[in-house]
């Protein structure tokens, strides 16, 4: 066991959290800098993981194994495959950009960053652990801080949104927890280790029965149609950086959970249920796009676009399980998690900026914003075009891969979701036309544009989108070997 990179990555925000808790609330500057430093270090560590991960060999690497509660078989088992590395990187990027986005926060700074970092810790934990118990543990850690974050720092019906979000996610957990315990008992190995559980073949009937619990339990967090309602409302109510983490990373936890627990441990169940869930996901893709077309609030548009794009992820997962074009579908799903994460983070970071200055999120309130804040608008346009699946930006590749698999597996579904691209373009361009183009609204003539360091987080995310848009190999090489192992099972 070499240097425990993964634990260090987890400890980095944890230390920051402890320091922040010990800081007097008045010293807001210190709190900000502590968060920034921890996020920068985490970013460097994630980059290191990416660089040192041997994609050729594939499989789980950087393994750390320390028995924790041996009596019940809980182990501090940290290890990542290609998917984990990509998603850890995503989390670090969004964390870093999120801290910078909230730099100007003035209200209860200490508490805000403490909760946000707690959320980040939970996400890191889920992505790196190979222990079912720890996975659930970190999963809950990641979910719960959303409630105070929305309730205290939110806007627009925040009590309703926070409560709705909490109820949906806890309902998901309520489905999940018994399912996980059932898996533990059914295997009878006395261990929570995902690696050992994955080696065990569960009884077919058991798989068929338990898989929907796992899929829907995690799926709720992934914005699965029709249990997505919490997500747009939550997006709208949450402060910008929380929306970034929420849409950018938290929703990926759900899809990752389906993959890491559902597909990996219960493959037969996954195969059995895949056509149905693929259908739901496809409906989600088109449905989200249609609903986004009717929204009047910036954040609602993005919220429903997330439903639509996460539909692509879930569609990819299910198509992968169906096995006709498994590698393409899994690659597409995971790549889409990453691309969508960066893209929505960029969206919310920019909308947050506009909202902080203008105190309005209503699309119709604006108009001609392009001449007022050209930089912010340009960045939003980049994110929007990425959402519309334009080549040259990261989202194009995963969408293409998933659509390809869809055409191969379920041609009719494929045609429908591809036709959805027109709708995507339509709702994105509608926002451009109404808010950014047209005669400038004199009401906003004093709004300042992005400048100086404010460009840093947004610029970073734009650069990431462009990089993967032009050089998808960077991602596909990383996740390819993991996909091969996974796809071999279907």
């Amino acid at each position, binding site marked *: 066991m070499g240097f425990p990179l993964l634990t260090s990555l987890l400890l980095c925000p944890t230390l920051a959290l402890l320091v922040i808790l010990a800081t007097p609330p008045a010293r807001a500057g210190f709190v900000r800098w502590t968060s920034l430093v921890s996020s920068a270090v985490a970013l460097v560590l994630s980059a290191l993981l990416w660089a040192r991960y041997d994609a050729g060999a594939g499989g789980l690497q950087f393994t750390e194994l320390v028995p924790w509660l041996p009596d019940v078989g809980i182990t501090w088992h940290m290890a990542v495959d290609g998917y984990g590395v990509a998603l850890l990187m995503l989390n670090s990027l969004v964390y870093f950009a999120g801290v910078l986005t909230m730099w100007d926060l003035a209200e209860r700074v200490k508490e805000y960053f403490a909760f946000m970092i707690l959320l980040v810790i939970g996400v890191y934990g889920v992505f790196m652990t190979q222990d079912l118990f720890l996975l659930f543990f970190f999963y809950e850690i990641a979910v719960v801080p959303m409630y105070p974050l929305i309730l205290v720092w939110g806007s627009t019906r925040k009590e309703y949104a926070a409560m709705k979000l909490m109820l949906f996610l806890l309902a998901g957990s309520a489905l999940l927890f018994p399912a996980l315990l059932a898996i533990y008992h059914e295997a009878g190995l006395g261990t929570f280790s995902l690696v050992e559980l994955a080696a065990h073949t569960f009884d077919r009937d058991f798989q068929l029965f338990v898989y929907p619990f796992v899929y829907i339990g995690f799926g709720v967090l992934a914005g699965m149609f029709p249990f997505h309602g919490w997500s747009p409302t939550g997006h709208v109510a949450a402060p910008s950086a929380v929306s970034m983490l929420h849409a950018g990373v938290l929703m990926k936890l759900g899809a990752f959970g389906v993959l890491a627990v559902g597909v990996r441990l219960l493959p037969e169940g996954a195969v059995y249920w895949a056509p149905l869930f693929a259908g739901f996901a496809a409906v989600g893709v088109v449905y989200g796009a*249609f609903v986004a077309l009717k929204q009047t609030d910036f954040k609602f548009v993005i919220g429903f676009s997330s439903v639509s794009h996460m539909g692509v992820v879930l569609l990819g997962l299910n198509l992968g399980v169906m096995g006709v074009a498994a590698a393409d579908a899994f690659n597409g799903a995971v790549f889409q998690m990453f691309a969508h994460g960066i893209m929505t983070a960029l969206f919310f970071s920019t909308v947050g900026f506009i909202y902080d200055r203008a105190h309005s999120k209503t699309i119709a309130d604006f108009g001609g914003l392009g001449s007022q804040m050209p930089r912010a608008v340009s960045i939003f346009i980049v994110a929007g075009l990425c959402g519309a699946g334009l080549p040259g930006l990261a989202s194009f590749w995963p969408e293409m*891969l998933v659509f390809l698999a869809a055409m191969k597996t379920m041609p009719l579904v494929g045609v429908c979701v591809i036709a959805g691209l*027109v709708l995507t373009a339509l709702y994105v361009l509608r926002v451009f036309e109404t808010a950014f183009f047209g005669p400038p609204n004199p009401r906003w003539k004093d709004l300042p544009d992005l400048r100086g360091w404010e460009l840093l987080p947004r610029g970073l995310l734009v650069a990431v989108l462009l990089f993967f848009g032009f050089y998808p190999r960077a991602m596909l090489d990383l996740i390819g070997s993991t996909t091969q192992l996974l796809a071999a099972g279907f």
Partner: protein
Amino acid sequence: MDPTAITLATTFVPFLAFAVALLFFMRQPVVAKAIVLAGGLVSVAGSLVLLAGGPREPVRFLWFSSGDVTLHFGFIYDGLSLAFGAVVALITLCIQTYSVGYMAKDPAQTRFFAMLGLFGWAMLSFVYAVDLLQSFIFWELVGLASFFLIGFWYEKPAAAAAAKKAFIMTRVGDVGLFIGILIILNTVGMFDIPGLLDPETGLRAQVSPGMLTLVMVLVFVGIMGKSAQFPLHTWLPDAMQGPTPVSALLHSATMVAAGVYLFARLNPLFMASEATLLTVLCISTVTALLSSTIAMVERDIKKVLAYSSISQLGFMLMALAAGGFFAGVFHLITHALFKALLFLCAGSYIHHCDSMEIEEIGRRGGRKMRWTTAGLLIGGGALAGIPPLAGFWSKEEIFAALSHNGAMVFVAAAFLAALLTAYYTFRMIFLILLPASEEHHGDAHGHGHDSPAVMLGPMMLLAAGAVLAGFGGGWLARLLDVEREHHTLLAMLPAIGVVALGIAWAWWDFGRRSAARTGLVARVRPLHTLFVNKWYIDAFYAAVVARLTDLLASFFHTVENKGLDDGFDGAARGFVESGWLTARLQSGWVQSYAGTAVVMFALFGIYLGLR
């Protein structure tokens, strides 16, 4: 030098220029212009060097692979790409130069030039792409550049709406193309264009004829969107909201030609599918005729040109679908030259006369701008097909191709379209040249003075092209490696006759001294109404397609809010309500509690007693 490096320079330098200009020189338009022009110059030099080198083997590099998909990035060097690449680079540079004069007073000109650079990159990369998916990527990026350029004056609501419309309508076509490409990949397992074209191992050998037809029709749907064919043509006239150089570059010479180019690229595959060819022939014929009729009554000079572009694109596709590969490509190239010229002339008029109305330009003395008017005459003549200008030769090829392979109805339609083309072109020319009345108010707007040299230079270059390109047919045929028939003067007579008839008709309606200057169509009320309203196609879209989309969106929105949201809220409220139900037992009245306790004890006692 290594052709790969040259191609990389040709395609990528404009992108570099775009990025550098936009990121670093937003406030120094002069530097930005210089950078973009330099980039354009590099492209021209590169494409000419490649052209001089002649056709050679394509090159490919691995871009990425995922599962079954292996995507290559590479360049193809056959006669088609070399010739069209050079034309694109040349016209792009011409128009960039012209824009230096045209956009001189625009405060946001850096953005304009940057976007021209972006467009040059996307278009050239599309032309040289060896891989179908690579083509698709740049095809989309061309559309993106078009979106930004049409919406350049985004503060005008009409421009913003036009940009959106163009993007969405081409997107509709692109969905078809994308599905087609994915089907190709799923059946053949590759995107490589030369590989797909191979008669032994390519697409034809591997899929059933029915499948081939399906795929090619889907690809043609993409072409319909991009090349503005009926019924997806209505975005192009609206796109005239963009600055005129944009119309010249994108909506006549290059971007809209991309569809025709793609057809030519995949020509052998289209040729293998009879049903597709018939579809293409029908649609392109309808397009050519329909748009000509609208051009006959249109008052806006740019829109006349836009409709004529649609009509000429229909012409090219007719030729290609009838098996006239050479005729189609030849017309593609000549049309690029003379239509760009016409748009630049139109821009020059608009610049000086502050109006887009043809009659207004005539009234304000547009004809006094000698060089521009000369350009208009050459371009218009080429468009109408007056020998020996470029358009005549290529159109003649098209007639020949159609009469060889098409049914008589298509030949007749082509002649009719050519007649209408000559008519509306010379309607425009006569209205400018021989206005019914003329304003004489000194020289307040600089009327009578022509545009600056930086604008006239490119126009003259294109005019030279429009005159001379017609004689390059033999050379082009050799480059494309196709047989070209020799046409006798006798065979050319019908073509000449049609043009003469069209011009004479236009003279009767608009030219002669006592002409009413309203046109024949205006005297036939129903027809006039139909043409002026553009055959009600836009109205149909607004009334049916747009409303249908809106209805569906409203429906889903209602499902979301009233169905799902209220449903879940209702469920949550149900739980709370059921809580209240049990809470009502908790009356707070001690005596009722005590009574309950007594009753329960009594019941328990009775139970114990009975046991």
